[in-house]
């Protein structure tokens, strides 16, 4: 590759490369070499130096006092004491005291050390030589020769059978590790397609924990519901809730634009999955006039009066709707599970 390229275009290294070169009359741009060292006040005036010393010692003393303050605060201040400190507001007194004393005790050590280094330690600049990182050709040749000797002695080049079986063994052995990871979790199967909803399951109002009746759902309000039988005690409560959570609104049937959506509603009461189809945040904001709901995570907006289709934002498809009706006793019930998977899309969703 580099053969077709002329690498000579790179400039020569500037002349000063060999170290500081004394300025010459011919080259006004030459490196004049190190400037003479300018002594600091502390270098020539012992009084200034002593004042620096006192500053450093003062800072170290402040640190010691602050540490004592830390210990005292720890012992004295009750953990639940709240104080008002302007402009921070009402905050934990202990946290404030411990943090400030710790901060000061640390900061003062640092400030002292830096001040000491800057004012009292030598500030004469020193130069070290650099050496090329790459080895010299001799060293390179020697290492290559030694490596060749080593490979020769191992006979790996000659005994192909050993080489190939060794490579095979080394390639296969990590497979055991891969298999060990298999039991990290069960296979997905069709778990993402099913929720707790099924025919006849009542819609339980999340606020009251009572089964919902149509008259509980007012126009303009957003009600959250879960399937009957989902109990906080059960071991898979969170997993079931993550799929089954419902959002219920009531819209004048004439205002529902999507026909199927209207059919799946009960007198304008619509039940949609609460889980955003983008990456799964629960949806929480409802605009009554427009019947739009907004996902607070990335602002996907769905029009509930039109089959919950996406009208803005990064979500890729509408919120699934649950087909509901009312049972003999006048309670809202599901007529089956969601027809499509709820929540974020995935490869097998189709």
């Amino acid at each position: 590759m580099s053969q077709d390229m002329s690498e000579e275009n790179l400039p020569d290294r500037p002349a000063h490369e060999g170290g500081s070169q004394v300025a010459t009359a011919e080259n006004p741009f030459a490196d004049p070499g190190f400037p003479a060292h300018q002594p600091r006040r502390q270098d020539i005036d012992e009084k200034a130096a002593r004042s620096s010393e006192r500053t450093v010692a003062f800072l170290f003393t402040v640190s010691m006092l602050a540490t004592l303050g830390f210990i005292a605060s720890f012992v004295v201040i009750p953990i639940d004491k709240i104080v008002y400190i302007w402009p921070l507001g009402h905050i934990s007194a202990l946290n404030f005291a411990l943090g400030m004393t710790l901060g000061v005790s640390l900061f003062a050590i640092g400030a002292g050390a830096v001040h000491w280094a800057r004012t009292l330690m030598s500030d004469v600049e020193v130069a070290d030589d650099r050496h090329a990182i790459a080895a010299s050709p001799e060293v390179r040749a020697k290492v290559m020769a030694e490596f060749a000797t080593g490979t020769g002695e191992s006979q790996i080049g000659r005994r192909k059978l050993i080489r190939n079986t060794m490579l095979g063994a080394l390639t296969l052995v990590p497979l055991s590790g891969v298999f060990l990871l298999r039991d990290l979790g069960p296979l997905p199967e069709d778990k993402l397609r099913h929720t707790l909803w099924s025919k006849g399951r009542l819609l339980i109002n999340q606020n009251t924990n009572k089964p919902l009746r149509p008259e509980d759902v007012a126009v303009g309000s957003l009600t959250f519901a879960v399937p009957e039988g989902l109990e906080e005690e059960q071991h898979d409560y969170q997993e079931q809730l993550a799929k089954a959570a419902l959002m219920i609104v009531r819209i004048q049937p004439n205002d529902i634009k999507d026909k199927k959506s209207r059919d799946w509603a009960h007198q304008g009461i619509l039940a949609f999955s609460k889980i955003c189809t983008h990456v799964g945040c629960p949806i929480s904001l409802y605009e009554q006039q427009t019947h739009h709901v907004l996902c607070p995570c990335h602002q996907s907006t769905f029009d509930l009066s039109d089959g919950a289709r996406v009208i803005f934002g990064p979500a890729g498809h509408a919120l699934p709707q649950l087909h509901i009706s009312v049972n003999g006793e006048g309670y809202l019930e599901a007529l089956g599970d969601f027809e499509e998977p709820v929540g974020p899309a995935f490869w097998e969703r189709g």
Partner: protein
Amino acid sequence: MSTNTSASAKPRGKAPAGERVADWADGRLGIYSLGKANLRKIFPDHWSFMLGEIALYSFIIIILTGVYLTLFFHPAMNEVVYDGSYAPLQGIKMSEAYASTLHISFDVRGGLLVRQIHHWAAIVFVAAMLVHMMRVFFTGAFRKPREINWVFGFLLLFLGMFDGFMGYSLPDDLLSGTGIRFMEGAVLSVPIVGTYLSFFLFGGEFPGAEVVPRFFTIHVLLIPGIMAGLLVAHLILIVYHKHTQWAGPGKSEKNVVGMPFFPVYTAKAGGFFFVVFGVIAAMSALVSVNPVWAYGPYRPDQVSTDAQPDWYMGFSEGLIRIMPGWEINFAGHTLVLGVFIPLVIFPLVLGFMGVYPFLESWVTGDKREHHLLDRPRNRPVRTGIGAAWISLYLILLVGGGNDLFATRFHLSINAITWVVRISFFVLPVLVFFITKRICLGLQRRDRDKVLHGRETGIIKRLPHGEFIEIHEPLEQGALFKLTQHEQPKPLEVGPEVDENGVEKKVGPTAKLRAKLSRGYYGEGTQIDKPTVEEYEEITSGHGHH
């Protein structure tokens, strides 16, 4: 200590205790050879060299506070009823992880402070790494022989961001659970294997009871372990390569000028550790970060309205927010491009920085060692690329906070989203050209300064009435500094025909490379620096003012 070397005035007898300990250690560890090489090792000084130190120190602070937190934190997702001293949540069911976080915050004295220090240090850590990386980028300190160290540093940045996200997820509060849900959605979007990855990650369906303990191990053991190894390698290579330095009188490619490690650098760097720690401790006393008790325990059907990740994740947040919700359905499958594309772009945008040193050296054909730093203005194309990258990063941060911007400035989210979408493509290009322009302007100014001297601000009236500003010629040190840099020329595709008249084949890669190289160093990418002849003509012609 052989007796014949102690010919000094020191009385015979035992050496001081410290010396004896050192001798003991040397006999086992060879510390004197180490000390010989390193005790007086020279480190150049410049404020921008402290950025890496801030990153180093915040990492140490993170480890110290993190170990403390592991003593109290229970990484378990079984359900408990909270009975600690934070009244608003008493009697509420929650995971043990969340309950133990509340315990640390309200019932362990100093626990809240350590939690806050840990979180603040993580924020500072990632910020410091990013800015440190920028300084290395803009000064060209990543060039040979330091490319590998750049890659180590880059991996530290990547892992640091990732580990921060994991840590954020551990308390299992409403906000962190939302972040994990986001992650599940992102994993699900991966074609073919996404659902499997998700089930393996969560040990079944989201959220399950595995994710917190698993993240805990990754967060406190796996990633920090890798990072500690990378960090040590990073530091060893800095010592081995010796630090870069700015050009100046007496400073060259062949030397390194500064202060010895012991005592000056030890005191400054060691002191600076305490400064950083002190500042972060005070921040933790004053500004609350991640008050998990205010969010409540995680429930998959609830969300806190101002769900925002830590700032360094805001960039991926921006990508995910501005992406249109593309989904392609075919043959019973779904390609979730709306989530998967951001998931791919995120590492690509970062990864561009990771491989940049190799790109640049390929394009410019420069395979030599460099120990003198470039002034950003003298490498306008590189500086432009860096600025464009930053602008991309920032515009995505804006995208990540589009709701905040919308409410703060009374704009529609729709408008902001479109602005960010268009800016994603347009802004980096604009920023590139503007930056390049500015660099060339600064080069021109340097050239004028060399040829005509520095403006003094003193106005003089000439005998015939004209006013001129007196220019003071630069000292030689300044002249040297402004003219010592190289001005490389672009690579060229050699002649199409060689000396013998035989046509040479020039591959398309070679042509592309030559073209890129012209983009880097060809016409319009640098202002010729003054030559000695030009300088002499002007100075002798005008005479000195």
